[in-house]
């Protein structure tokens, strides 16, 4: 094994085990940011040692032991804080000697540990961006550089954001615990929101030249799958997972060979991912069983499910989709949802019916700079044969779009309308 091979092997173990390692140390120290640092130190030690000694038989246990030793050292160093810590350090040390099979002993409540870690990373004290960065770092195991690339930000900015977030957490002296009762619901929705944000940023990249950033989608999906395992009775965790699996099932069909977007109705449904569709529909069924049918994520998943179930574009149940959008619109009072409802209504009842809804949104302040409003309006006008007006809308949409691929696509549609008029 070359040094590079060993490093790759170490990073593989790290990706698999780091959340567990941080969680175990955090349980000892009741301090997540510090636990994260000590876990990183254990990783650095492995990167130094293993190229010489070879990868140990049980690399995860090695990393856990190394991180725990550091935690014990830390507790000793701060023994002026009281005898209690000393006792704790002794207790932990003897526990470590007495229980050689750390893995088995710790496996039982590891789920709770990781859940606590997610709740800490998504704490409401932190900004949304900080929550996302910290979650990707501590639970997803992404490096600062990877997070920066994913969010098209500089490494310095992300690193600053993480440092500040960790300081906020340490200074607030937050108990490292899973919230209970009514607080649990609220905190869980903050966690779901972070995952949703990460997924959306990956699925519909708002900036830059690529339409998608698959790494963010993958990470969000993984977090969603973890959360469903940890909080299996919460309908909205299943709703969110369903939404993500169903969206992701269309990934292979969303772009052509040149990376240009292909609209939903033009996509080759044969290459939609059946496994993800199956998982998505199962998760939706679970969300509905748990009474979550009318909730935010489950409703969106139900809309996607209508598309997933249609073998051909013309089989799509647009009336049902329009009804689901109406429900979602009532729930969120969001003009963006209303815009989507307009599209569904135009498919169910004709372009004019859709245009009537869109025209009602013209003065909506939240949509003033939203490129999809003129884009949808242009599409409806084109379907009604009003090509000159459609062209103007597509051109306006192109000036508002910030994704390069999308802008090019809109300009091509403007050109097509010009030719048709």
């Amino acid at each position, binding site marked *: 094994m070359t040094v590079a091979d060993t490093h*790759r*092997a170490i*990073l*593989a*173990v790290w*990706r*698999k085990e780091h959340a567990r390692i941080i969680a175990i140390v955090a349980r000892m120290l009741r301090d997540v940011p510090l636990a994260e640092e000590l876990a990183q130190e254990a990783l650095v030690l492995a990167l130094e040692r293993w190229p010489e000694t070879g990868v140990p038989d049980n690399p995860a246990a090695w990393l856990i032991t190394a991180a725990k030793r550091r935690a014990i050292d830390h507790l000793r160093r701060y023994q002026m804080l009281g005898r209690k810590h000393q006792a704790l350090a002794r207790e932990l040390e003897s526990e470590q000697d007495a229980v050689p099979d750390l893995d088995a002993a710790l*496996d039982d409540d590891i*789920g709770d540990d990781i859940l606590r870690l997610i709740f800490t990373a998504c704490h409401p004290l932190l900004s949304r961006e900080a929550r996302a960065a910290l979650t990707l770092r501590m639970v997803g195991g992404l490096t600062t550089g990877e997070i920066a690339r994913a969010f098209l930000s500089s490494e310095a900015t992300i690193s600053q954001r993480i440092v500040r977030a960790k300081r906020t957490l340490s200074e607030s002296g937050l108990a490292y615990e899973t919230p209970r009762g009514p607080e649990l619901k609220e905190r869980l929705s903050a966690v779901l929101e972070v995952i949703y944000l990460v997924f959306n940023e990956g699925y519909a990249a708002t900036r830059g030249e690529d*339409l*998608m950033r*698959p790494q963010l*989608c*993958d990470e969000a*999906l*993984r*977090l*969603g*799958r*973890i959360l469903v*395992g*940890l909080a299996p009775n919460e309908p909205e965790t299943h709703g969110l997972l369903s939404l993500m699996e169903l969206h*992701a*099932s*269309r*990934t*292979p069909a*969303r*772009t052509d*060979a040149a*990376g240009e977007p292909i609209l939903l109705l033009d996509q080759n449904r044969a*290459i939609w*991912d059946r*496994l*993800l569709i199956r*998982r998505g529909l199962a998760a939706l069924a679970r969300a509905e069983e748990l009474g979550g049918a009318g909730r935010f994520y489950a409703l969106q998943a139900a809309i996607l499910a209508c598309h997933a179930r249609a073998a051909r574009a013309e089989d799509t149940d647009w009336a049902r989709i329009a009804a689901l959008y109406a429900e979602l619109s009532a729930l969120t009072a969001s003009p963006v949802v209303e815009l989507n409802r307009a599209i569904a209504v135009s498919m169910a009842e004709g372009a004019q019916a859709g245009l009537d809804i869109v025209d009602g949104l013209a003065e909506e302040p939240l949509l003033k700079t939203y490129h999809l409003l003129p884009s949808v309006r242009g599409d409806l006008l084109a379907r009604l044969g009003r090509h000159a007006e459609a062209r103007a809308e597509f051109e306006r949409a192109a000036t508002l779009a910030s994704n390069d691929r999308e802008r090019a696509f809109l300009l091509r549609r403007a050109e097509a309308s010009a030719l048709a008029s």
Partner: protein
Amino acid sequence: MRYMYLVKSCQSGMPPKRLFEELDKMAEKAIKSGAMIDSGGLMPLPMGGAHIKLDGGKVSVIDGPFVESKEVVGGYAIFEFKTREEAIASGVEFMNVHREFGEGWEGTCEMRPMMGNPHDPPR
């Protein structure tokens, strides 16, 4: 990257119960970690299986007996990993459980990256 694992063995008879328990534990961990996205066990070929063969322009269904195939594909699992190293590490962990609790079980876990993965960058 999505990987499929196929577990093959020439062993006949039921593997020890303890092995199944340990594999269940491992599977639960893999599901909770978000890595395992599908899995299933396969019945032995003589229990309702068949070979549907295309040979010399003729399709034929063979219900058995399958004397020539000693190797049994016992099950499959589909995992999602970032790197091949992670995928290998998982396969090794799986086989280590067999070494520890399989009471002499021997076999192969074949690991194959799946084509057309939706999470690969667009081609």
